[in-house]
């Protein structure tokens, strides 16, 4: 997918000016966050915190010996009849999938949700090579019709309201326009049924890879994942190498924390564990199963001071709790992954110089870290990326100079006292009778949307010194 995160500010500006989007974002608001809070409460707050600790530990255990677990996964999956392919970058993902399509004469591919396939721009590649991709997750289906990218990793069409979906369906389904949510869903279901039955290839992601059994675990709410992985004669699961976990026992722990953190569900409607292709005597399942294990930037994090990011299980809790995401929506971020996790992943995968705004576009409020089911210290990682930007000379000279001047003065108390003495008087004057400044020469970012309350006119240190002198202390 083309990275447009360098246009974050402009995209955020458009998002803020989009009345319809703003209304959708306001309505969505803290919906998922409230559901997560209720699920945590129902589970028991202390028990849930223990579950987060255990989940983080499981992820760390997998990552500590990532190479060994991946080889174990390959061995077990191969033993059970799957073919394991490795992709060092997104170009290799496209190559592998197109080769599979050619080998099996694929004309139509049905897909369940896969963010890694978004990284690879897989749908465009398939179309360009004569294969029709059909997204079968309802949200993904909607945005495929709209020719848009997901705006949220688990709720890809969250930026659209029902009216927009009605219009899209009427336009593409050539049927009378429906307005009832259930009727709309039923119509999408009818449309997809034919695709499910006629597709030659099923493409899925993978929420977890279980090393000890060579299984791919997939969670969905619509059952489309199960159809995609069982109906067509070929199934390809595409997922990042970091998704490997050692055991089924680990899977059971992580599958308690994932749905609760994502949508507040105790368990998702469908939980599928796919282990190899169809065997003798199996009633269903694909004749061929492939697993594509993707690096595409992930190994850069292994062993680095940002390895914690690889714990991510793609639940979306960080964006559900992020006030910046809630204000501008996911498309502003400009690449596959939005919100706090995306603001870390985009610069790491796409190059720090190609996503300069994202690590800065956070108030470091910490809401994401508290919600993260695997305790990724997201604010800390964003701060580290800011440090890398600074070290690489990627910040504007005015910003760097500003810090140097500030630090130079703040290290010299007498100079600092003098400078602030002047500053507070000037600002007080600028504030006038109303005591507030509506336009700051060097702070237009601030005064664009709010006033700056003027200072009292004398600094604490002046007043305190005067008081001490007065009382003879």
């Amino acid at each position, binding site marked *: 997918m083309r990275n447009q995160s360098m246009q974050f*500010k402009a995209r*955020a500006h458009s998002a*803020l000016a989009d009345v319809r989007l703003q209304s959708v974002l306001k309505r969505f608001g*803290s919906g998922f966050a409230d559901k997560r809070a209720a699920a945590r409460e129902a589970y028991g707050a202390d028990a849930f915190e223990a579950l987060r600790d255990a989940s983080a530990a499981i992820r760390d255990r997998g990552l500590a010996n990532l190479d060994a677990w991946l080889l174990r996964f390959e061995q077990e999956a191969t033993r059970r009849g799957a073919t394991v392919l490795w992709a060092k970058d997104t170009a290799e993902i496209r190559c592998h999938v197109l080769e599979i399509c050619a080998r099996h004469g694929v004309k139509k591919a049905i897909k369940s949700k896969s963010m890694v396939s978004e990284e690879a721009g897989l749908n465009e590649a398939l179309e360009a090579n004569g294969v029709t991709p059909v997204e079968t997750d309802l949200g993904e289906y909607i945005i495929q019709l709209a020719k848009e990218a997901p705006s949220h990793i688990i709720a890809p069409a969250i930026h659209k309201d029902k009216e927009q979906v009605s219009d899209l369906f009427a336009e593409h389904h050539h049927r009378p326009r429906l307005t009832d949510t259930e009727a709309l869903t039923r119509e999408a279901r009818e449309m997809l049924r034919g695709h499910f039955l006629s597709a030659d290839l099923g493409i899925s992601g993978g929420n977890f890879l279980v090393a000890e059994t060579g299984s791919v675990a997939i969670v969905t709410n619509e059952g489309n994942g199960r159809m995609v992985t069982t109906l067509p004669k070929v199934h390809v699961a595409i997922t990042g190498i970091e998704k490997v976990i050692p055991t089924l026992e680990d899977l059971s722990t992580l599958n308690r924390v994932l749905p609760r953190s994502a949508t507040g569900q105790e368990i998702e409607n469908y939980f599928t564990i796919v282990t190899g292709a169809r065997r003798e005597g199996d009633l269903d399942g694909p004749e061929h199963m492939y697993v594509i294990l993707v690096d595409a930037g992930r190994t850069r994090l292994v062993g680095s001071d940002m390895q914690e990011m690889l714990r991510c299980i793609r639940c979306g809790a960080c964006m559900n709790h992020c*006030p*910046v995401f809630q*204000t*501008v929506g996911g498309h502003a971020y400009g690449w596959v992954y939005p919100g706090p996790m995306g603001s870390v992943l985009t610069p790491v995968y796409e190059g720090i110089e190609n996503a300069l705004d994202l690590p*800065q*576009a*956070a*108030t*470091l*409020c*910490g*809401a994401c870290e*508290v919600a993260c089911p695997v305790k990724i210290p997201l604010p*800390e990682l964003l*701060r*580290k*990326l*800011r*440090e*890398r*930007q*600074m*070290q690489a000379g990627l*910040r504007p000279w005015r*910003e*760097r100079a500003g*810090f*140097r001047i*500030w*630090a130079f*003065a*703040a*290290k010299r*108390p007498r100079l*600092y006292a003098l400078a*602030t003495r002047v500053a*507070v008087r000037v600002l007080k004057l600028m504030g006038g009778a109303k005591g*507030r400044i509506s336009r700051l020469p060097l*702070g237009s*970012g*601030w*005064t*664009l*949307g*709010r*006033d*700056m*309350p003027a*200072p*009292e006119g*004398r*600094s*604490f*240190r002046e*007043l*305190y010194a005067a008081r001490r002198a007065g009382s003879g202390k």
Partner: protein
Amino acid sequence: MHSGRRVGLFVTCLVDMMRPRIGFAALKLLEGAGFEVVVPATQTCCGQPGWNSGERTSARALAEKLIGEFEDCDYLVAPSGSCSGMIKTHYPALFAGEGAWLARVEALAAKSWELTDFLLNVARLELPPGRFSGTITYHDSCAGLRELGIKQQPRRLLAKMPGVTLTEMKDSEICCGFGGTFSIKFGEISAAMAETKCENIAASGAGTVVLGDLGCMLNIEGRLRRRGDETTRVLHVAELLAGESD
């Protein structure tokens, strides 16, 4: 628990410049609670702006300076969750792996307190000297809330004031959009977040919003006035508790 009664008041750079009366309110509360309060005259900034912006060198220099200024006190108290959070939770990261420095940092972090936390849990303040009559709503500042667990401390102190009625706003724990340099770099987003906060404040029906950090204070007050709200008061919890709000 320390046995000494000598508190070093870290006024914070924003209080020093923008709202000195909050510094005096903190002073009054601490002295009123029977502590000897020293205000190191050379203090400036804790280094957080540099730290949060990836400018480690300046953050480090200012942290060293602050440690030298306050380490001989029994306590360091600041009327800010953000600056206290910097000292308590981020200084150790700033000096990670440096044995000698780290020992000093950890000693200082252990005796550093956010003002309301200190007043409630160390000073055991029973009767705040302030007099106030009215309905307030409380905005939880992010760093205080999530780095230091400041949530009930200000509320319990305010509950000791007979004239104060607290009505909680919707989403009091959600960031107001300040975020330090974020407020300048992404002014438009920051102001939109502040607007959401102001809507929640207005909907609470309270005439006064109380909080514990200057950044949030300037942001919220600035947005309230810009949106035409001339009456809702924005007060630091210290002002209210000390009765220095006029």
